[in-house]
Each structure stands twice: as C-alpha cells, then as structure tokens.
C-alpha cells in the first residue's frame, strides 16, 4: 500500500545561512542514494526547510528487498544421513529460524543450505539508519554540542516526527524517539501539535501558523512585499534578492508591516540608511517608484502575530535609535577631513604577521605603481589615491557599519572636494563585493581592486595561510575569482604574471610566485568550465596554462577554439605541434642559439621566417598558427633534425625550440594532446 512518508527533525532556531546550505546539501538525488544504501526506496521526495524544522516528505517509502536468502554451509557438511546435524542447527539458530525452515539449493554446482530472512520487520531499523545518515551528511561551519550525546549540529535538535501514513515509525535519532507531536511558533506556547497523518502535514502546520515549504514561503514573501510596497507607489530595494533569500529562513509565517522613520534622517547618505535597515535590522528599504529615491518608509517582515500596531511601533523605535546613532557618528566624522583618518589605520589590523591597514596601503601603492601603465594611470594619481585609500576604515561610521567600507570613503572624499575619479576608486577597490557582484568600472578603481586582492593572496600565501580543502578563512578563492572576472570582462592587456610579480616586489620575495600562479590559474580553469563552453577540458587546460598570461587573450583564444577545434587545419596544427614538442621539449640540446639566416637551407628558412613573423605578433590568433603547418611539415620532410653535424643539429633544434615557444604562447602543447 502506498502511504505518504514524513520525517521531521525539530530544531531550535537554525541560522538562515545554514538553512540555505541544508537545502543545497540534501538534494533529491542524495536522498534517493542514501535511501538505497539502507534498502529503501522513497518516491517523489521533497525537502522542506525552516528555522525550526528540516522535513522530508515522500509519496511513499518501501523496502527494495523484503526478503533475502542467506547462504549457509554445504549440504554435505551440514547433513548427516539425510538429517540436519549440529552444523545445520547452529546455522538455523544464528539466523533465528527453526531448522525445518532451512532451504536446500544449488549454488555453483554444489548443494548449500539457505535461510530465508524476512526483512519487512526491519523497516523501522532501516529508516532509523537512513534518517541518521541524512542528519550526519549535513555539514555546517562550526557545529555545536548541546547535550550528553556529544553530537554536533548547527543548533540543538529537540524532537523527531516520523510517520508512514497515519502510523508512527518508531525510529530513534540521537537520543530522541520519534512520535507524532510537532511544535509550533514560540508565540503559540510550548504545547505540542499532534500530526494525524503524513499526508496532512503541510495543511496541519499551516493551521498553526507554519509554512513548512521554503519555496512556498519565498513565493508568498515576494508577493506580499511587492503588493504592499506598490500600493504606496514604492519598491523594495534589495539588490540581488539577498535579503529576500535570508528572510525566507527567518520567519515561518511571514507578515509584512509598513513602517516609517522621521524624515529628518533622510539627510544621512542613503547608503548609510540602507545598511542600517537591511544589514542590521533585516528590513526592506523602500524607494520611490517615480524617482528611485530612498523614502522614509520600510518594510518589516514579522513572524505571524496579531498585534501588528504594537510590533510596528517597537520596530520604529529601534530604527530611530539606530539612525540617531548613525547621525552621531556622521557628525563626529565630519569634524575631520578624510585624509586625517589615514594615520589611524596603523592601529587597524590587516593580519597579525602582515601588519596594519597602513602597511597594506603601502604595499598596494607599490603594486599599483608597477601596474599603473597598463591602466593609463599616472604615478601621481596612484600616490594621491593611496593617501585616502583605507582612511575610512578609521572613521566612526565604518567602525560601526563595516560593510560601508569604501562607500563612506567615497562620500567623505567628495565632501572634501577630492577629484571624482579618486573618490570613485576608493569605493571601487572593494568591487566585486560578491561572487556575482558588480565590477569596478573605472581604470583607477580596477587598478586598486586588483592591487588590493593580489596583495592579500600573495601575502597570505607567503605566511603559509593559503586555503586548504574547504577551509579558506581569508576568502582567497573569492579574491582570485574577483581578479579573474575583472580581467576576463575587460580588455586591459595586463598579464597575470605582471600582477603577481608586482606583489612579489611589494613583499620583496619571490618565494610564492609559483604557488600563487598555480592557485589563480587553477581557479581560472574552474571559472571557464562554469561558462558552459563547448571546448573540451584538455584544450581548456592548454589555454589556461599557455605562457601568455593575459587573461583577455586567453578568452579570445577560447572563443576561437569553439569553432576551430573541429577543423582539419586545427588537427594538422596539433599533429605538427606534437612532433615539435616531442623533440623540442625533450632533447637536452634543444636550446635557442643565435642563428644567422644565411646559414639555413630553403626549408629551414621557410620555417624560421614563419616563426619570426609570429614573434612580431602581439596577440596571435589560432589561424595565425596555421601558417606553421606547411613549412613545419616540409621542414621535417627535408631535414634530419638529429644530424651528425653538431652545428646543423643545434641550429635545427633551435628553430624547433622557437616554433615551440610560439605555439606555447597560445596553447600548452603537452596539455592539448591528451
């Protein structure tokens, strides 16, 4: 009989980010796979997550095998005179069945005893193991202990419900035995809610002010927010829906309240108000539909409750106090110019071994100086920007609201009459702020965004703080991706090598150039694979690890490969490249020696000239490499590379070495031929 299945793990309030992570960890295929491991089949599994419960609902749960034959001893051994002897009896008792129930069957041409095992009674056991494994599979950063079981999880687990149809499946999870009692929102008190059947789960919870399904809550939230906001000609301002996603996991029964703060606070920079509302209080700032300007209205998403007036009043009081604090900090900061805060960054730690933010600014200056040319930035502009770059970190406002770093710098710089380019760069050094976040738009901002990040990566590698496994406490992978996104989306002709060696210059050590290069290029490989390119992995790797480290160049080559990779010309080029690589990369004598063209025969000259022409090309295309195929093939046909004569041999090897170098700028040959 098909009966719905319910497993609910009741918790104390899970952090929103942990909820999101549970959703992404317990995908349906993982649930299926885990079930199968314990001889179970769940049909149409659905995972529902809220701060108070992690629920698995399924249309049915059944055993894959209901019985199993266990092979025992050989018949000849276990039977004497056609009757079961002690060995047979022992086997029967080990399987908990009477001797008469043993079966005799052939296996590989020999007769054996078999015991038929009924698995149907093991269902609760198997579900117990399945549920425990699902729980153990969930990982969260810094899990906690809360009781004598010593189990570690996001937050304490307090109850378990497990129903098959209407019946309780008596599983145990940690030291909890499953029942049918669930628990509702705290404001409804501590009494339990009896669940009649698995099929009625969502309906029963809804009656008790709980929307269990996070996808449903997201839909409801989106709708109630836009309805209430637009009724007043307003729009909720929530870039990238970050707050919305978080709010899905902050309330089980979201209810919007429209609130107001005093208009006088609108004299604060809107960015400050938005951070107070959104980051500190989880409120949705509201902007006007007509002019996109921030208004003195905001939306509070409360958990279901009755006295909304009282709740709105409370939230408004909090906002008033917070904004008054912000005004206080703004006025304190206004007593000094932005530049006056800069010396105070010497007391703000960047990293214990890498010094203060002032120290970091100095290194960033060295890096930016050496890269300035690529961005058409003048040295004096670099110096002027560095003087203000990190100053806002010492302001009251950023000390209180750290996510405003850079933004406050820009606002105060403009207030002080600083050049707009410099003010913008102060903010843009922190872009992109998230994996998908906006990139810096100006050359000066881009320069400092790169400099700041390569300083962090290089510095932390140099003190042995590189990311390992899943641990990346300084967010270096994110920093590397930011560098790559910037260089990928722009056409700045700056080689990654130059970026990395500028950091080596700032730290006055070359020791981690290689690991840092490897680290960033490995990220590049990942980054490209996520772009959905038709180019196969070996060619992606060949481009990533080619010797020209200009990212926009690599991007061009990949684009060309999308169509070129299937052509005969490309196959011909690869064939030749392989031959050249075989000799040029492996022969000990293969070095570039000085060649005088007049010493060369005709076919040698042809290849030599083609290679020299490629050398003059800044950004050769794949099709430019095709010019090598004809002369290269002819060269091999007409010349014995490993000639007896040393001079001849070295000359030929040298030509091949040069050709190899030209191809390698575009494609790493060794990696292309897998």
């Amino acid at each position, binding site marked *: 009989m098909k009966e719905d299945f319910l497993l609910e793990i009741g918790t104390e309030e899970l952090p929103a980010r942990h909820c999101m992570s549970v959703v992404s960890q317990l995908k349906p295929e993982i649930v299926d796979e885990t079930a199968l491991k314990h001889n179970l089949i769940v049909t149409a599994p659905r995972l529902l997550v809220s701060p108070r419960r992690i629920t698995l609902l399924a249309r049915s749960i059944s055993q894959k095998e209901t019985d199993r034959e266990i092979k025992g001893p050989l018949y000849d051994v276990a039977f004497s005179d056609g009757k079961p002897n002690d060995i047979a009896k022992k086997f029967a008792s080990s399987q908990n069945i009477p001797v008469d129930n043993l079966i005799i069957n052939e296996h590989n041409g020999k007769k054996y005893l078999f015991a038929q095992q009924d698995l149907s009674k093991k269902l609760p056991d198997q579900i117990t193991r399945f549920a425990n494994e699902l729980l153990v599979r969930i990982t969260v950063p*810094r899990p906690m*202990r809360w009781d004598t079981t010593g189990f570690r999880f996001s*937050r304490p687990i307090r109850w378990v419900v497990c129903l098959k149809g209407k019946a309780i499946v008596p599983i145990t999870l940690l030291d909890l035995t499953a029942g049918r009692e669930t628990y509702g929102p*705290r404001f409804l008190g501590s009494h339990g809610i009896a669940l009649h059947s698995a099929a009625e789960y969502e309906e029963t919870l809804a009656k008790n002010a709980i929307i269990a399904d996070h996808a449903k809550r997201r839909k409801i939230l989106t709708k109630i927010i836009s309805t209430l906001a637009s009724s007043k000609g307003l729009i909720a301002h929530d870039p990238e829906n970050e707050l919305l996603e978080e709010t899905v996991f902050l309330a089980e029964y979201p209810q919007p309240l429209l609130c107001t703060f005093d208009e006088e606070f609108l004299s604060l920079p809107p960015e400050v108000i938005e951070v107070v509302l959104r980051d500190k209080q989880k409120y949705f700032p509201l902007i006007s539909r007509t002019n996109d300007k921030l208004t003195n209205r905001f939306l509070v998403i409360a958990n279901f409750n009755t006295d909304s007036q009282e*709740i709105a009043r*409370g939230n408004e009081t909090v906002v008033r106090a917070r904004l008054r604090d912000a005004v206080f900090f703004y006025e304190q900061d206004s007593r000094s110019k932005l530049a006056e805060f800069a010396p105070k960054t010497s007391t703000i730690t*960047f990293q214990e071994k890498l010094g*203060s933010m002032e120290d970091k600014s100095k290194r960033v200056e060295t890096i930016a100086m050496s890269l300035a040319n690529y961005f058409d930035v003048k040295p004096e502009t670099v110096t002027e920007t560095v003087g203000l770059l990190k100053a806002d970190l010492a302001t009251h406002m950023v000390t209180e609201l750290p996510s405003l770093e850079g933004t406050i710098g820009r606002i105060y710089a403009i207030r002080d009459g600083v050049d707009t380019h410099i003010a913008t760069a102060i903010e843009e050094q922190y872009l992109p702020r998230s994996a998908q976040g906006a990139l810096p738009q100006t050359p000066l901002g881009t320069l400092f965004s790169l400099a700041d990040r390569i300083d962090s990566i290089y510095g932390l590698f140099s003190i042995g703080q590189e990311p390992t496994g899943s641990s990346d406490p300084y967010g270096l992978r994110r920093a590397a991706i930011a560098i790559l996104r910037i260089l990928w989306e722009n056409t700045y002709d700056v080689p990654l090598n130059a970026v990395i060696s500028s950091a080596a210059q700032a730290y006055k050590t070359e020791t981690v150039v290689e690991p840092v290069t490897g680290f960033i290029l490995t990220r590049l490989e990942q980054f490209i694979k996520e772009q959905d390119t038709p180019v196969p992995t070996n060619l992606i790797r060949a481009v990533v690890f080619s010797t020209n480290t200009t990212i926009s160049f690599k991007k061009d080559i990949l684009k060309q490969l999308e169509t070129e990779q299937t052509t005969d010309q490309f196959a011909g080029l690869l064939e030749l490249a392989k031959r050249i690589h075989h000799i040029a990369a492996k022969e000990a004598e293969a070095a570039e020696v000085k060649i005088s063209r007049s010493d060369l025969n005709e076919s040698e000259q042809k290849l030599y000239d083609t290679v020299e022409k490629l050398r003059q090309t800044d950004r050769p295309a794949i099709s430019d490499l095709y010019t090598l195929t004809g002369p290269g093939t002819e060269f091999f046909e007409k010349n014995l590379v490993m000639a007896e004569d040393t001079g001849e041999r070295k000359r030929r090897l040298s030509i091949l070495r040069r050709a190899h170098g030209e191809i390698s700028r575009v494609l790493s040959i060794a990696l292309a031929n897998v």
Partner: protein
Amino acid sequence: MAKLSLSSHKQAKPLTFQQMLRKLEEYWEKQGCVIGQPYGLEVGAGTANPHTYFRVLGPEPWKVAYVEPSRRPADSRYGQNPNRMQHYFQFQVILKPAPADNIQLYLNSLEAIGIDAKAHDVRFLEDNWEAPSIGAWGTGWEVWLDGMEITQYTYFQQIGGVNLDPVPIEITYGPERIAMYLQNVDDFKKIKWDDNVLYGDMFERQEHWQSVFNIETADIDRHQKLFELYHQEAQAQIEEGNHRAAYDNVLKMSHIFNILDTRGAVGVSERAHTFRQMQHLSSSIAKLYLEERKELNYPLMKKS
C-alpha cells in the same frame, strides 16, 4: 492566512529598573538558580564573573543568576548617546547542563517582567560569541523583541581552550534596553530606577567623568606600566598555583588593555601579542581550577 485569536496582556504600570531586576532574580530563583552577586572588579561582561568563568568548567552542575555591572571603555560617550554607556548592567543566567526547555524558560522570564511574547515578534537571530583572548567561544543567538536586541543567548562550547562538558547555556539580558522598551523612553538617562530617581540621576555624571578619563586623560605611559605589573603578578600567581589571584590580575590586565585601546595606544603586533599572553594565562588558570575541583572530588556533584 489563518487568524489566531491571541490576547495581549499588558501591564498597567511598567516595572521600574530595580523592580525588573528583582523580578528576574525571583523568577530564576524559582527555577532553582543560586542568586549571585557582582564580582567587584572591572569586567567587560557577566561572563568574567567567576560564577560563570570558573563554574562552567568541569562536570559539576551549576545554576546561577546575577546582575553584573560591566565596563567597556570603548563605549564611552560622555553620557550623551541615548543607548551607549561605558558602564552598564548585565543580567546573567547560567544553566549547566542546559535543560532541553531552556528557551521556554527564558520566554516565561520575559512574561514575568511584563513582556508577553504572544503579543510581540520574538526572534532568535544567529549570533555566535567568540573571545579569543580567553580561548572561549559559543554558538547561539541574539534575541530580538520587535527588532530590538534584548538578550544574548549562548551555548558555551569552550573556555580557556577547554571543551565544556556538560554544555552550559548562558542567557545575558540587556536590562537597560528592556527597561527603555517597557517604560517607553528613548534615552537610558530617562529610565525610572524607582518611582523618583532616574538612571541618569544615578549615572550621568559618572559617565561624563569616566569618558573623559577613558578617551582623554588616562595616562598611556602609566597604564602601560600597570599592564606590565599586572601581567607579572598574574604569571607569578600561576607559578604559585593560585588560580584565583592569577585570574584577578588577568581581569585587571584586560581592563587596562581596553583603556589603552580606547586611547588609541595599541599597535597591531601588540594587540596580537597581548591576546596570546592572555590566552596562555587563561588556559593555565582553567587547568589549575579543574585540577583543584578534581582533588576536591567535585563537591557540587552531590548537590544536584
């Protein structure tokens, strides 16, 4: 949406500050807590009181509630900021081991001081606590009442680098915040301490002068010397095996460090160095305490 009929019970007259603290003590006394007293040294939080700092270590059960006057020189605002003071109060509860229904117990305590959780939006938002200088961390929440943080709620995991087993729950109320809410005033100075005297009458001048000291006049040189002297004493006391005296000296170090920090006199490497020193001291202190409890055969085990 389903509509639920819930009645809100509001107190006719909100509690004064002193009544509120007394109600909390009465409530937790009924839950079996010892009612402790403040420690009498400068501390940054109720956690530093030995009622918490020592008692959460080791296997012995412990339930305590107390008021702790706390100091944070960095929050000096001359008494002019409505929400921030360099000297304020915490109401601290420790339940060890943490009972499974501790959140309900907490919500009931709010009711006892006139906050009906049924009429408000009470939320538990992720907030983890970490104090590397004493090798301590825990996970938990800040509790919001209609958007206002009124309590820090922490399942302690480690102190002095030692895993806590059983795990205690620490509930730290912000009594000024709660009183401002209950009494509907927008400045701590306007809180009614009793029917006649305001919080401001009691503390405004103290805030002014202590802020002058913390921000402007505390002598950096002398404080650096004081820090070093307390450090030497703490080390000497650890060598004597006297963890209690050592601990007092660490508290002094910590407070003086905070004053120096407020004066802007702590460099980057000094900060890291100081934290390491204190971490080292607190781990030795925790070890000495645990050794003594073991030698005493855990006297509080019998009283649970």
